[in-house]
């Protein structure tokens, strides 16, 4: 009769590796969704528009 080798000492290490892989996989699936579902934020900085030359206030009375 043969006996199974005792691997119990390595079980916690395997569990940690599997948990880490599982966690990374879940993160990879969720990240794109998290990114698209982020609430829209207002533009932080207005891009300035250059002021034109050669114009004047219109004289409505004139």
């Amino acid at each position, binding site marked *: 009769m043969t006996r199974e080798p005792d691997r119990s000492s390595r079980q916690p290490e395997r569990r940690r590796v599997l948990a880490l892989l599982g966690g990374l996989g879940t993160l990879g699936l969720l990240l794109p969704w998290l990114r698209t579902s982020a609430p829209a934020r207002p533009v932080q900085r207005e891009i300035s528009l250059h002021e*034109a030359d050669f*114009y004047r206030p219109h004289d409505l009375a004139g």
Partner: protein
Amino acid sequence: MTAVTCELCPRGCVIPEGAAGDCRIRVNLGGRLRATTYGRPSAVHIDPMEKKPLYHFLPGAPVFSIATAGCNLHCLNCQNWQLSQRGGEEMEEIYRLDPPELVRAAREEGCRSIAYTYSDPIVFYEYVYDTAELAHAQRLANCFITAAYINREPLRKLCGVIDAVNADLKAFDDGFYRRVNGATLKPVLDALVTMREEGVWLEVTNLLIPTLNDDPAMIRRLARWVHDELGPGTPLHFSRFQPLYRMRNLPPTPVETLDLARREAKDVGMEHVYVGNVLGHEGNSTYCPRDGTLLIGRVGFMITHYALTPDGRCPSCNERIPGVWRSAELFGEQP
């Protein structure tokens, strides 16, 4: 609510707050007029100088060519209507290229000149002016390709930083300008004279459209005006029309019409008359007006023969050919 009057071009648009002028890109925001496409070109290409067309200005040089959206004319036959007849917000592509970046990009691409072209650069006037000033400081030439529908004061200021202009003279008829271009003739003629007075190198293009502006008598009047007001050495380009945009009902200009226009112009004394948009036509090339020597042979935009002396003279008879043939003529010899 403060409306403003734009004094850049003869339209003189009165623009209420929040609205744009006729060109679509000069916008009144809070009583201040904003040039919304400043630093935001939508077309950026490197072209040969011959494409502008400028035939007597740094021949064969590559030109860094830009345009933004918008135009102050509305030509029914516009060949760049996707750019010119739309506002900045409608562009598929908008680049961020402030004047220093633009000049740097031109230099990095090996271009010694910048062209403001495609749409009418009058409408992005401030962007042209600031870029041209910087370009000059770095010995880059500035080319302005325009329909010349601009007021005198802004034009005079611009001429201080522009080296060469190709101006469209669309017809010698005010009614044509009103019907086909949504503009008027007189301000264009005034602008061409101002450019000549200011010493900018000037070439003139007349696109001949069958039945609309190809009457030989009108062509003759146009050529005579150019001869008398701008000088017989002004290069005059007669260009072939292609059915485009809202004028697809007319055929391309027959080559015979272009030949006839060329003869009419030479007949009134014009010395350098060209035919454009006809590949391989003898009118693509430059000849000495005195002895007929072929000076610059062209096939399309390609130079196939170059016989001018370094100082721009005919090698056979020593006739000085008007033009700017080397950048040293603009900026002096390289230190």
